[in-house]
């Protein structure tokens, strides 16, 4: 979870800094679209012959709208490595191996991304095998059912972490209707039933793995005109057919919720305080202010962090996550508390910090420092094709393009202390709140 927190922060930083001013993004962006709707974002940059190639599917666990199918987007990510008639899984693997590519994939709420890093001389080969599996995926029922075992293995690996247990409980508590109710890996009962979903998996592929729902992000030592010729050759015959899922909006929360959850091992207690937030929207000033508020109120230079972590040493983790999502996510504050009897007091300290930000304008210099921090974090994280592509993938998945990068940072630049106060008031109210306390079973 801590890792997740950091990753989200990094993703936000990347996103947030792109448009601080025209020209801060040091690479030219070349975006083109095939007639079938496949968008290709190309970013040439100096790199020693390396290319990062991301196929961003704008589908994640958010799109798992059918009952009993939680975790399917992630499962499907695994199935994409099982091959086609032209390149069966073992052949696909051996091609990736023969070119020494670093290849993997990941799935989250709103995205499934497949990424390869390789030498530019192998670009056509990569375009060939990637376009093939996106159009012609073909696997047997046996392979499908075997892969379900690997998914369960991944679940078992994760479930020993208290943060995974906490996340599962918080989502289930806070959401009623929206698919953010489940984690990306899914409910355990649905993972157990995955081997039964062979027919459903075909429908998943045919509805979501379509050119209008996929964006290619190609970064590195490339020449866009030559890349586009190859993309047109290999992806040009891909048929349209995307069917948007009917994701049920979450109704407004009418009051505070709370729950306890038990972790079967030993852990220090962890308190997770979550508020219903807002969908990512770079022109929503209050949302953008909330992104900064998380850092200002709970980050390493906040009064609360200094008090609870450094001076009083009552917590060993204090962090906030203000994620960017396609729909309404949770804005979360998380603290790991050293003594169980301190949990209520730490909770109240978090509430007091929020109250302070609701009633008092943040110091203008601190806000300026936060903006400067974002700018440099952004600049320092553009040193490899993989970092550039990986950092932009979420933006692309959520918005379908890169324009939001400029828009968001322009908005961040305009933020005033009053905006921060407005965000504290709008989002961090008790009726939007859910609180989960996790304790170890051995305590």
């Amino acid at each position, binding site marked *: 979870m801590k890792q997740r927190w950091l990753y989200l922060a990094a993703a936000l930083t990347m996103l947030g800094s792109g448009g601080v001013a025209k020209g801060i993004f040091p690479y030219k962006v070349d975006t083109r679209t095939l007639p079938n709707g496949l968008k290709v974002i190309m970013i040439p940059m100096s790199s*020693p012959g390396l290319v990062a190639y991301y196929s961003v599917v704008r589908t994640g666990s958010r799109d798992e709208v059918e009952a009993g199918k939680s975790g399917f987007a992630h499962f499907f990510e695994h199935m994409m490595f099982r091959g086609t008639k032209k390149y069966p899984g073992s052949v696909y693997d051996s091609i990736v191996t023969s*070119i*020494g590519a670093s290849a993997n994939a990941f799935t989250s709420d709103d995205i499934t991304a497949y990424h390869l890093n390789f*030498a530019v001389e192998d670009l056509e080969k990569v375009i060939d095998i990637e376009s093939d599996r996106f159009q012609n995926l073909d696997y047997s029922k046996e392979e499908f059912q075997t892969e379900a075992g690997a998914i369960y293995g991944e679940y078992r*690996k994760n479930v020993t972490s208290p943060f995974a247990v906490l996340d599962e409980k918080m989502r289930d508590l806070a959401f009623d209707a929206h698919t953010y109710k489940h984690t990306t890996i899914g409910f355990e009962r649905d993972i157990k039933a995955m081997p039964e979903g062979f027919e459903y998996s075909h429908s998943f592929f045919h509805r979501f793995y379509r050119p209008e729902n996929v964006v290619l992000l190609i970064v590195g030592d490339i020449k866009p005109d030559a890349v586009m010729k190859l993309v047109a050759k290999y992806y040009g015959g891909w048929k349209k057919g995307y069917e948007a899922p009917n994701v049920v909006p979450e109704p407004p929360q009418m009051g505070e919720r709370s729950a306890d959850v038990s972790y079967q091992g030993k852990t220090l207690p962890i308190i997770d305080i979550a508020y219903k937030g807002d969908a990512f929207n770079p022109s929503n000033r209050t949302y953008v202010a909330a992104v900064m508020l998380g850092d200002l109120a709970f980050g390493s230079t906040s009064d609360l962090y200094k008090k609870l972590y*450094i001076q009083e040493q009552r917590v060993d983790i204090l962090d906030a996550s203000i994620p960017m999502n396609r729909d309404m996510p949770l804005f979360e504050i998380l603290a790991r508390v050293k003594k169980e009897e301190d949990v209520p007091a730490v909770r109240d300290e978090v509430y007091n910090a929020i109250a302070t930000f609701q009633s008092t304008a943040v110091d203008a210099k601190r806000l300026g420092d936060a903006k400067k*921090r974002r700018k*440099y974090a952004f*600049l320092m994280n553009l040193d*490899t094709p993989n970092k550039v592509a990986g950092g932009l993938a979420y933006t692309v998945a959520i918005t379908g393009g890169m324009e939001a990068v400029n828009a968001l940072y322009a908005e961040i630049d305009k933020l005033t202390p009053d905006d921060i106060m407005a965000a504290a008031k709008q989002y961090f109210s008790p009726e939007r709140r859910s609180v989960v306390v996790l304790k170890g079973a051995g305590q």
Partner: protein
Amino acid sequence: MRIMTLTLAMALLGAAMFTIGEAAVKPGDAVLLPVPTDATICFRIWFKVGSQNDPSGKEGLANITAAMLTEASTKKNKYEQILDKLYPLAASYDAVTSVEMTVVYGRVHRDNLKEYYPLFVDAITAPAFEQADLDRIKSEVLNFLENTLRYSSDEELGKAVLYDDIFAGTPYGHITAGTIGSVKSITLDDVKEFYKKNFTRDNLVIGLGGGYQASLLTTLRKDLAGLPPGAPQPIPPPQPAHIEGFRVTIVEKDAPAAAISMGVPIDILRGSKDWYALAIANSWLGEHRNSSSHLYQVIRETRGLNYGDYSYIENYPRGGMLSKPPQNVCRRKQIFEIWIRPVPLETAHFAMRAALREYRRLVENGMTKAEFNLTKNFLKKYVLHYAPTTMERLGYALDDRFYGISGSHLAKFRSMMNTLTLADVNRAIKKHWHYGNMQIAVITKDAKALRDALVADSPSPIAYKTPKPASVLEEDKQIEAFPVKATPENVKIVEVKELFN
């Protein structure tokens, strides 16, 4: 194509732009990696001290002393003030301590060097060593030992138990974090004394990379010369006890799945021809987090038992978090290691057998020509992904110094893929890998049943919930009866709460 290859080679050769020095450190010794086009500056200050230098009863002291430099107050600034000053720079510094090395590292955009540099240097040369900081850091290490390591990741737990068992009785014989008892006993005086003795001007190598000006090195040398003189006594490489047969530690806990790690010491280090030959065999058997791993194919891809299965000829800490090898965790003694990610409890014995069977087949039969060609071509390009950033390449350059490698390990890795033959690889396998002796750590429920099964070497048939091809079921019959017999005295059961005390 030719130009491309040349460009790649030059990128790697960049890591070779440092002086190859003697084993002993000279004052102001530096490993330099200038990259004028890089807008950032990278620091790695390597102190030749690690957990092997922890005094007896004070295990964990090297790690805590390093944290007292980078996560605590200095004489000029309280820790809170340091965080405030670093914040707008989007920069930080940290330390990594392993058995033989402690490296204080940081990276900053050149626009912010002026503000960053004094903070970085003060952290090393002017720590305040305040009791409140020590209390905070100790409490975090204790939480890691008492809770996180024991309960939250069984795979990390299995690896810690494996290394502790293999290196028991040697200076490598405890994890870097130490033990609960030793960490509790560490005082401020211990930290001050350890710092004075080990974090000296005669015991460091400067690593500097990126877009820095030459004057920065002069300033850094001058500032670090203000550290106390002297150096600790060299410690000979550890001599772990010989492992005869299968020695197993089963950690009993309420685990949802069984995590397995296995290993045996090897007498080979990065830099020698045989190491690169063995790297080809190891990559084929178990390339880290890669579907090209043969163990992955057998256990995960074909049978769906877990999330992945890999093997190593160098220590690879934080393997669950990293996809490429870490830097600055060098050792003069390595083990061959197999990592089986958690499998269903009832398949632990089977999975262990499946992995050992593949290892034995490789040791006895060697690689085929096709496997060899595929793997060497893979590695030749794959190592390009090991160090795409200046910071990572600087880390490798320091590691080259540690291992006494002339030039760059990564460049040598690539060139070796052009010169090594199948015979070289199969000879290296025969010379360095010997099937039959292995330390094994298993984290699982019902340890007694597993112990009885291992001692009896009883069959471990597997039942799948879903259909499998006949060829797989046929091979399963061989796996389930594959001999992995352990004597009763070689199987130890411990409860998780007994670990790291």
